[in-house]
């Protein structure tokens, strides 16, 4: 029982990452009709916003310390962050410790900006082009983006820890009356789950309750009609692209402490997030979220030792197996609309 509760918890957490990425992907697809293979790259850039911001906070000048030696036996150069000079060491350390949450503030304008530039500079010209062309050009863009990141940050993962306050894990087991330590979950992952829930809720509320959102939803349903009403839908779609990029980017920022960011983390997520979107049904936002959580939970269950003993290798294929079964039983995924990307 406790094992099952634990894996559900796990699946929700995993699923929240999938759902966030799939949500952004679906926003872009649903509003603009563009298959964006560079979406994973946006997620990756988000994570590197966190990396860059913490690097920025630790920008240092060097002080030669004659008492210590470096690995070659020369006097050691000690790096002193400028932030120490500004705020003193204690406050400086605290700020550096909170780099990841703080970088959220920076990353929103950065990601929205990147989204605008991408849409106006490139994607805009591909609305009327075949999906295959969209895939190729965004895939090319994804490669370029990740190579640029690799050029500046290297291929190795870069540790980007969460604030010390979120170290360790919360003991649900003890709370629910199980033995202590049976159901523990890291604080930061709980934060991530809550964060994802807030973002998903905010996007839905935005689309549901604002005029802007209503127009965009109408545009998703029938672009031409909305265009005929004299509403400048293109401008709104650009903004929508910026929002989708920001959602992906924020998902990336918050993910940085979970797995140290590296330049190909976007590609690692890309295929998976496409599976999630398609299983959810092309163009359906609730579908994307639902599929994200569903696949996350199933993946967690498949990685349980008991299950693996029963069916070796199931953890390798579970997502794809489920995708196949769902697509064969529900032609348009869980909540897909008819006629979307079926040609």
């Amino acid at each position, binding site marked *: 029982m406790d094992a099952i509760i634990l894996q559900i918890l796990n699946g929700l957490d995993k699923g929240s990452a999938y759902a966030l990425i799939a949500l952004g992907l679906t926003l872009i697809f649903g509003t603009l009709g563009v298959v964006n293979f560079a979406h994973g790259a946006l997620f990756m850039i988000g994570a590197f916003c966190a990396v860059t911001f913490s690097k920025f906070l630790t920008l240092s000048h060097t002080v030669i310390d004659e008492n210590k030696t470096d690995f070659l036996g020369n006097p050691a150069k000690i790096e002193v962050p400028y932030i120490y000079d500004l705020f003193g060491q204690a406050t400086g350390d605290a700020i550096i410790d909170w780099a990841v949450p703080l970088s959220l503030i920076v990353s929103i304008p950065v990601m929205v900006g990147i989204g605008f530039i991408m849409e106006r500079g490139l994607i805009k010209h591909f609305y009327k082009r075949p999906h295959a062309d969209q895939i190729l050009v965004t895939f090319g863009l994804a490669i370029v983006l990740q190579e640029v990141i690799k050029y500046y940050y*290297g291929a190795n993962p870069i540790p980007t820890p969460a604030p010390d306050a979120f170290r360790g894990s919360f003991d649900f087991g003890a709370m629910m009356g199980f033995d202590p330590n049976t159901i523990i979950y890291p604080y930061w992952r709980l934060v991530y789950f809550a964060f994802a829930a807030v973002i998903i809720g905010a996007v839905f509320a935005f689309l549901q309750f604002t005029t802007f959102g209503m127009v965009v939803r109408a545009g998703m349903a029938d672009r031409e009609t909305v265009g005929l009403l004299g509403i400048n839908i293109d401008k709104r779609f650009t903004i929508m692209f910026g929002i989708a990029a920001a959602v992906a980017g924020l998902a990336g920022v918050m993910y940085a402490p979970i797995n140290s960011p590296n330049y190909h*983390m976007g590609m690692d997520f890309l295929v998976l997030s496409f599976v999630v979107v398609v299983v959810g049904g092309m163009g359906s936002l609730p579908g994307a979220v639902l599929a994200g959580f569903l696949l996350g939970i199933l993946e967690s269950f498949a990685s349980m030792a008991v299950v693996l003993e029963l069916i070796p290798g199931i953890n390798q294929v579970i997502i794809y197996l489920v995708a196949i079964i769902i697509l064969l039983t529900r032609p348009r995924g869980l909540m897909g609309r008819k006629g979307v990307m079926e040609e």
Partner: protein
Amino acid sequence: MSFSKLTRRGLMKTGAAASAGLTLPTYLRADGHSGFTNAPTGSTVTLGFNVPQSGPYADEGADELRAYELAVEHLNGGGDGGLMNTFSSKALQGNGILGKKVEYVTGDTQTKSDAARASAKSMIEKDGAVMITGGSSSGVAVAVQALCQEAGVIFMAGLTHSNDTTGKDKRANGFRHFFNSYMSGAALAPVLANAYGTDRKAYHLTADYNWGYTTEEAVRSSTEAMGWETVNAVKTPLTQTDFSAYIAPVLQSGADTLVLNHYGGNMVNSLTNAVQFGLRDKQVNGKDFQIVVPLYSRLMAKGAGANVKGIFGSTNWHWSLTDEGSKAFVKSFGTKYGFPPSQAAHTCYVQALLYADAVERAGSFNPCAVVEALEDFEFDGMGNGPTLYRGADHQCFKDVLVVKGKENPESEFDLLEIVEVTPVEQVTYDPDHPQMAGGSLGTCNPGA
């Protein structure tokens, strides 16, 4: 047209027929038949450095390449000579290899066996490389080693840790300086027993591919021999990035030690996740929960950041060693590049020198002569103490380092501290040990 069984740069035996129908004046290569692939004919000799330049191991590949460039510089008499000064064999003169200036070509393995073979083949066929070296995974090492055996060139493996490379997939033309899974297990077990006691319950997470299997087997058998119990061993997909689902149930199992048979990105992520779960702050069975990482690398430790603190593992070499060889290498590498070398850089540098030395001693680039010179070759001064290149499986036998993540690092490179230098006797095994069984070296192939 008649085909002579030659690859590039070798001499054509019967190629005249090929030009029979052509009106342009044609010339055959003027040199004589030398009896092996890519026999160097001019004043230079070409070596092929096949390292990952794209993909997750690109940084490790870049470090390997730096080491090779340094080795070439030293072989050609440049720089401070590096390990050539401390190497027990004095055959190398600093005038290239057998008087031929060393040149090199590079390629990208992409850490994929297909791509690695393609780039190795291009070095052999197009650039006339007489030796291929490098790589950062066992899949690549085994694939390229088999290729070199077929093509008749020497393969000096880079970073490859799986038993298979010199076990079931060993080849006469291939040599490995790096240590292997068995040695990791054999070196780690006593240290672990010493530090954590002999009645531990271990939970293994194992990367679901060959290297993971051999490492798990090695660590399990040697820790179980010390009295540990293995509670469970779960295989994780190579493509996994988030290990939470595998780590969450560890505490429920009643285990008090987690062994992460992971490497590279897998290891960085699984270790980060495990520490995030706060496993190391827990008490199980009245003991502090512990994590072990059988194969450490400094580059990966860097990726995991502070999470490595206090965690045991093994490594082939570390820059903080204080023997003359290690000091010399760190000095020349550090002076040139500004940071200390990784273990991958070390093994690659040493492999390049060992090859050059073997050629000098054999007096020939002929792979069979080189094999003979390397087999059962004993040397010292390369940073690992007295070392034997065993003839039976072309594996180096030397001391193994057990290391621990440093609690208070003084610099960004100062991540690991050496806990123990396990003497070579303790990690030596029979060539037909069950963990190595099933392969055969065959005989050396000189190619054409």
